[in-house]
């Protein structure tokens, strides 16, 4: 390991948080696009939302936006909760309808 890299790691700045957020976002996208289970897809969505939250907070900490970023973050958490409630209700109904929550099997809109 190069000492400069370790040094960079030891001194966390904005870029660290952005990279973390990007990694988290990519993982979320991966989950959404590749998971078969609807629940897992929803979890991916949560990851994406939280990566966005990290971005908000990071920018709020390292720039002069003071507490605006925190407020947006709180909103996102609330909206995410609401979204999860609605999404789970949809999933429940989809399960009732199709007797499965495997996304590959729910493809009625196939052209």
């Amino acid at each position: 390991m190069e000492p400069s890299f370790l040094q960079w790691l030891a001194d966390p700045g904005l870029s660290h948080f952005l990279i973390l957020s990007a990694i988290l976002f990519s993982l979320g996208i991966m989950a959404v696009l590749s998971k078969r289970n609807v629940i897992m897809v929803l979890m991916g969505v949560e990851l994406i939302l939280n990566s966005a939250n990290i971005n908000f907070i990071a920018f709020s900490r390292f720039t002069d936006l003071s507490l605006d970023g925190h407020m947006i973050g709180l909103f996102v958490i609330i909206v995410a909760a609401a979204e999860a409630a609605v999404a789970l209700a949809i999933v429940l109904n989809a399960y009732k309808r199709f007797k499965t929550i495997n996304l590959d099997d729910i493809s009625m809109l196939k052209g």
Partner: protein
Amino acid sequence: MFTTIPIIILLLPLLGFVLMIFFGKKLPRQGDWLSSGLISISLLLSIYLLINKVSSHSEEMISHSFTWVLIGSGSIEIGIAIDNLAAVMLVVVTLVSTLVHFFSMGYMKDDVRYSRYYAYLGLFSFSMLGIVITNNLLLMYAAWELVGISSYLLIGHWYEKKSASNAANKAFIVNRIGDFGMFIGIMILFFSYSTFTFEAIFSSINSGQLPFGSEQWLTAAGILIFCGAVGKSAQFPLHVWLPDAMEGPTPVSALIHAATMVAAGVYLVARVFPMLTSDALLVIAYIGAITSLIAATIAITQFDIKKVLAYSTISQLGYMIMALGVGAFTAGFMHLVTHAAFKAGLFLGAGSVIYAMHESLHKAKDHHTDAQDVRNMGGLKSKMPITYITFLVFTLAISGIPFTSGFLSKDEILAGTLAFSTMNGHWILPVIGFAVAAMTALYMFRLLILTFHGKPADESIISGIKESPKVMTVPLMVLAALSLFVFYSFNPLGAASGWFYAAIEQPMSVVPELIQPASAHVFHEAVENIHGMAMIISILMAGAGVLLAFAMYQWKKVNADKLAEHAGVLYKGAFNKWYFDEFYSKAFVGGTIILTKILRWFDENIIDGIVNGSAHITKIISSISGWIDNNVVDGLVNATANTADRAGGLLSKIQTGKVQVYLVYVVFSFLVLFILFL
């Protein structure tokens, strides 16, 4: 009150017609008493009207009119007008009609369509009375056509006979030709004066208004209206229908084709007399003269008793027309009246003979001998005394022997033509007049002698002959009485002093002075001057005719056949009716057939060709446009649809229905846009 009587007279026969048509067969005796009764009431009313009218010595008309229709700003008035002329005519029509009704009870007994026959008689009487009492040309034309149709129906009464239905058609069609001219004449007058009423037309002409402002048009209008008379009164050249009309029952011939309907033409000319110009009258006079001559020559040669009488009728009608043409108005009309009596009598007498012959032939079971051919008769005098004596009286009257009614009127006509020729030199008219007088006496006495005198042609038939029943002989006696002079003038040698001449005055001419015929006054003076001479000549001519007839057929001093041989072409021509029928059938009937053949060819080849050709062209055009439709237009539409279909097919492949695939697209597209724009 006087205005309602003519209307009652008019409507009674119509009532009879309606009742007989609907209920005739159900009535006792098939309703002959009903028709006869109604017409008898008409007769009594007519006589009452005439006596009142004539004894009042006033020329005042009984008239009544009302507005019938309004057209734009104008209106058409119709109504009735009874002057002395019409009053006399009413009596003539109803009298002959009544007698014929009674006579028919005998003659038509056991006929298959007995009640129908009486119904038609009623219709005819109604229409004929309509002609007489109307005061305008429109109603007259309507009634004119009605008598035409009733004549058609009655001629064709025995329509099972082909010749009868043909004769009915011929009568109707030939009459149409004349009526067409009359219609044009009426239309010229209506166009010029916007009225159909006689009085109004005459007063307009009198005030100097002429049709299209020209005197020639007035003459033309007069001659065109006279065309109607040419048709109905069987004048040359439309006289051919009348002899054929003898196919109808004989009483019908007496009523329609001798006494009344054929006289309607004469009555029409008398009605429009004031508006006739001197030129129009000259045409009328010559038509009458030619007709009387042609018909008289034919009558001499015929053997059918009814045909002789038919040609005699045409000849006498020609006389009347000629009389009106030369201006002898009263004489012409008087001849109409006297002729109605004795010619109706002659026909009824002939009917009586034919009836007797039929009965006799029927008993002898002979169905081949012609009951109307005089060559099968002869010697009927003793068998049918009443018929014989009345027939003799009629024959004397038509021949113009003194003390008969015929002498009075015929003598005045001849004096009129003679006076006319002294005024303007048309000497051919009196020459024809006197010649026809001699011929009339000749053919009538020939008929009388061949029928009643001499030896029977076939004893077996003649021995079975009986006098006709009372119902037939009484009308004959009535008519025979009316053929005597006393009913028309108390002076047996001159009609001018009688009531008839006082009642029927020549109407004043209303046409402009330059083209006016000689006035009544001038004319009367001319007649006065030569009356004596005319009378002597006419008696001589009649006497000569009678003598020749006796010499040829009674005493056989002159051989008729040899005489005919000497006459050669003349006899042949007359015997064949001067080939009028042949000429018409070649020229007009044949011409019409050729014309229709040409038209048919034209129709089948040219018109159909054009139609078929255009259909063919349309077919070609439509097949071309059909091809364009199927290939070009449909091709474009289908191509659009196919393109859309294919595009849809392609695009539907990416619609997998899998949410995550869509998300992949979104992310991928986002990345692409990101790379492109940042």
